[in-house]
C-alpha cells in the first residue's frame, strides 16, 4: 500500500518540524483540542451526569470516565503533504472511576476510586481550514 503520492517538495528540515507555540495554527489547534476534550467528556458512555451501572456477580459497580483538561498537551507539525500540510497531536490523561455497592442505589453514592489511567494521544490533520 503506497502512501507517498501526496508528498511533494519540502526539505527534510522543513518536514516534521513542530510549530512555535505562538504560531496561529498552534493556537487554533489548542482551541480545537480543548473543545475536543469537552466533546469526549460529554459523550463517554459513563460520565458524571449519566453514570454507567453494571452488575458484577453479586455487587453493583458504578463508573464514569473523564478526560482531564488540565493534562492537555498539544503539538502541531508541518508535513510533506499538500493535501494535509499540518498535523496536530493532542495528548491528555483519561481516568476511569468506579464505586462498588451491594445494590443499584448504593453503588453510585461513592466513594469512587481510579481503576484505570491512560495517556491518550489523538492525531488530526489540517484540511481546508479545519482540523479533522
Amino acid at each position: 500500500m503506497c502512501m507517498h503520492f501526496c508528498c511533494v517538495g519540502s526539505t527534510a528540515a522543513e518536514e516534521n518540524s513542530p510549530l512555535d507555540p505562538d504560531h496561529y495554527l498552534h493556537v487554533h489547534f489548542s482551541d480545537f483540542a480543548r473543545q475536543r476534550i469537552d466533546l469526549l467528556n460529554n459523550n463517554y458512555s459513563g460520565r458524571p451526569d449519566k453514570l454507567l451501572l453494571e452488575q458484577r456477580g453479586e455487587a453493583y459497580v458504578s463508573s464514569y470516565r473523564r478526560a482531564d483538561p488540565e493534562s492537555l498537551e498539544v503539538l502541531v507539525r508541518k508535513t510533506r503533504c499538500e493535501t494535509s500540510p499540518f498535523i496536530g497531536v493532542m495528548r491528555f490523561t483519561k481516568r476511569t472511576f468506579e464505586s462498588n455497592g451491594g445494590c443499584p442505589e448504593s453503588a453510585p453514592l461513592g466513594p469512587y476510586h481510579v481503576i484505570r489511567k491512560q495517556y491518550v494521544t489523538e492525531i488530526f490533520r489540517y484540511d481546508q481550514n479545519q482540523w479533522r
Partner: protein
Amino acid sequence: MWKSLCRTSLLFICALVLFGVQNAVGQETRTVIEPRADNFIFYVDNSGSMMFDYRAKDGDKMAVAKDLLLTLNEDLPELDADFGVFTYGPFGVYRPVSPYERADMARAFRSIPDEFGIFGRRTPMGGDLVRADNEYISGLQGDIAVIAVTDGESNIGPRPGEVMRDMYAHYGDRICFHFISLAQTEIEVGLVEDLAGINPCSVTIQAEDLQKDFARADFIREVFYTERQVVVTPPVEPEPLPAPRVEPEPEPEEVIIFSNVQFEFDRAEILPQYAEMLSEAARLITDREDPMVIVEGHTCNIGPADYNMGLSERRAQAVADFLVEQNVDSEAIETEAYGLTQPRFDNDTREGRALNRRVELRLE
C-alpha cells in the same frame, strides 16, 4: 412639582431601558446551525440525455453535474442529518440514507456513471421517484428534502409533476423538492419551472450559477440549514459526585486513538488523506524502546453484530499493515477486533456513535 416628578420618572424609565439594553448587549451569544430537514436526498438524472453537452460550460451535463455536486459537498457544513444519493434512468442507490460524512458523500457522487450510451437510456423521472418513495423515502423519519438534479427531461412513465403532487399530498409539510437545473431548451426549462412551482418551499438554481461562490452559498443556506443566535448560559452543574479516594493511581497505559480516520463505505482500505496521521502514530511507536502494539478495531452499534465484527477486524488489519509499511516491526503488532462490543461512548447520540467508530493502538 409635577415637572420634577415627570423628569424623575423619565430618568428612571431611561435608566431601566439602558439597563435592559446593557444587559442584552452584555450577554454572550453564539451561532447555531440547524439542518432544515432530517433527511436530504440527492435524486440525480443519470439518463441518456445527460450525455449531451451543457452549453453554458465545457463538458456534457453528467460531468458538469458531478463536478458541481462535489463542489457543493465541500461547502456543506457538518450537519446532523442523514443524506442519501440516488439516480434515475436507471434507478440506483449510491449512498443509502445515513448520517452525513463528507468523504463518503464525495465517494457516492464520484461513483455515479458518467460514460454511457445515449440511446435506449430513457428518463423515467416520475417512475423512479415512485420507486425511491416506495423503497426508501416512505421509511424515513422526520422531514425530507429531495434535491433533484435534472435537465428537465422526463420521457417515460408517470409524469414527475403528478408523482410530486401525490408525495406532497401524502407527506404534507414534511417534504420539499428542490432543483439543480441543467435545463436548456424552452420545454426543459418549462418542466423544471412547473415542478418547482408545485410548492412554494422549492428552491431552484441553474447549474452554471451553482458554480458561483455566493450563489452556491445562498443555495446551501436556503436548502440545507438555518442559523440562529442563542444566548450562551452557563451550564447547570450537576450535583457533584463525592471526591474520589486519594490513593496511588494504577500504572498508566499509553493509547493512540483514531476516531477520525475514515474508510470507504463498507470497506477497510485507508483513504490517502489519513496517511500523515498514521505515519505520526508509527513515529510515536518506533520512538519507543521495544514497542509492542495491539491494534483494536471498534464500531458503533449500527448494523448486525457479526458484520461489525468483520468490519472492525478488517480495519484493524489495514492499520496494522500500514504500520508495518512504516517500519514498525510486524512481530511487535497484534490485532484484535471488538466490533460493537466495547463502546466507550454513548451510542444514543450521533456524536457518540461517531466516536465509537474508532481504531485504538494500545502500546505495551
